[in-house]
């Protein structure tokens, strides 16, 4: 498949470019790498305050609960919203040399993936700190993270494509993502907090809500996620990714004409 060949061919470039971007982020301000850790930590405190004090929520290991949600959400959110204008932002490169456009998305995924891993390490430290009992079910995190990455890739590719042609897609997506944010239970538990028919509904139609809930289940509470649903979203993500790659290959050469 052309995709695999192109990925191989441009992999070194993608890696270098991601590394360079991370390095320049650190170079531009010495505190910047600290922000990769501080950002989720501070937001964790904000949401912990709101959920526990204002709405008097009572989840076990609440700070870690929020932290898992934020880590996964940030990864998804940053890449998807970043992909909307990604061609325009890279117009200097795109208009001078041919690059398969999904490489731009993968580069973003590597940059944010690195921050994701940093955040994840912090998460494990926090789990020890809060004495979360760890069970073998934590291994479910592997398919969960994998599915999150595949879904993010597919959706971002679509955003990249439509972002070129639709000028105000960014405004629309900002609202939609905000909605998804509140519908995914980043700082509350959907099964416990949302009344009866709707919680099932949300867990079924919103992959992020499902993945978050599963991640928390297997990391904090020793619960196994529904394998059936995992498979479903895995296949769904793969289909979206394949379709989006097809679309990108078909139209990518005309992007330069629009921008």
């Amino acid at each position, binding site marked *: 498949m052309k995709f695999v060949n192109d990925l191989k061919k441009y992999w*070194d470039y993608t890696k*270098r470019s991601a590394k360079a971007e991370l390095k320049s982020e650190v170079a*531009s301000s010495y505190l910047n790498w600290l922000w990769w850790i501080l950002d989720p930590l501070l937001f964790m405190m904000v949401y912990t305050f709101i959920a526990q004090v204002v709405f008097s929520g009572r989840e076990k290991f609440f700070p870690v609960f929020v932290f898992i949600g934020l880590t996964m959400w940030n990864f998804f959110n940053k890449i998807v919203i970043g992909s909307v204008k990604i061609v325009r932002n890279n117009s*200097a*490169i795109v208009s*001078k040399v041919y690059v398969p456009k999904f490489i731009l998305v993968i580069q973003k995924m590597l940059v944010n993936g690195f921050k994701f891993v940093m955040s994840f390490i912090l998460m494990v430290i926090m789990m020890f700190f809060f004495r979360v009992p760890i069970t073998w079910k934590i291994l479910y995190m592997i398919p969960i993270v994998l599915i999150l990455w595949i879904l993010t890739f597919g959706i971002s590719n679509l955003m990249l494509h439509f972002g070129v042609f639709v000028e105000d897609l960014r405004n629309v997506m900002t609202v939609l993502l905000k909605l998804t944010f509140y519908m995914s239970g980043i700082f509350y538990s959907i099964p416990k907090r949302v009344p009866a028919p709707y919680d099932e509904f949300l867990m079924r139609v919103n992959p992020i809500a499902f993945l978050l809930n599963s991640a928390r289940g297997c990391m904090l509470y020793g619960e196994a996620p529904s394998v059936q649903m995992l498979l479903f979203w895995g296949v769904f993500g793969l289909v979206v990714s394949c379709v989006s790659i097809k679309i990108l290959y078909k139209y990518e050469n005309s992007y330069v004409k629009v921008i």
Partner: protein
Amino acid sequence: MENREIALDVKDLRISYRCLKSFSIKRSLLQLKKSKVEIFEAVRGVSFQVPKGEILGMVGKNGSGKSTMLRAIAGIFSPDSGTIDLHGHSVSLLSIGVGFQKSLSGRENILLSGMLLGFTEEQVREKMDEIIAFAGLGRFIDMPVKTYSSGMHSKLAFSITAVLESDIMLIDEVLSVGDVRFKRKSSRKMKELISNKDRTVVIVSHNSETLRKLCTSLLWLHDGQVRMVGKPDEVLEAYEEFMN
């Protein structure tokens, strides 16, 4: 000339900008009537061949489709119809201001641009010193590209594509880059690159002198169509007469 290997083969190339205008959801909701689809054909059915080692010049007034065609040959545009066959040669577009990532240093950008042009990291690193020496930016090479002046920007861009050689080079008005000293240096480098018998070059320029000196044949584009092909002197004479 008939039996020489063809390096670049363009057949009935058509490129238009029709119906690719971006739209906004807000605007299409507010204006119910459809806006007219504008059609602009930049290149209309151009065919030509460049044998290996030839230097083809392209002339034509502004907006006659020269740059569009170069970009199509470089693979950045897709043609609406027609074919471009590079016969497996590597190609690079040498134009003012190759894409840099502004927050990265010059050194990083050399590496990234080189890898985008299809070279491996080791190959670029091997040539790194030569590129840096050629660009002559001094300590700026380790500063972010956003701190560069426009002259330094184009010097670096030129150096990268000039030192990392590809089989087919497309040159877009690049002969006037930088200050006097760099101009001399770059035109010497250009001649050296061009005189390599295996290299195929396509040059777009408005400078009759350079075209006359460098090219082995000339192509005159007018409104996206080939008006004349032939020896530089003949084409330039006709072209200048037409322009006056």
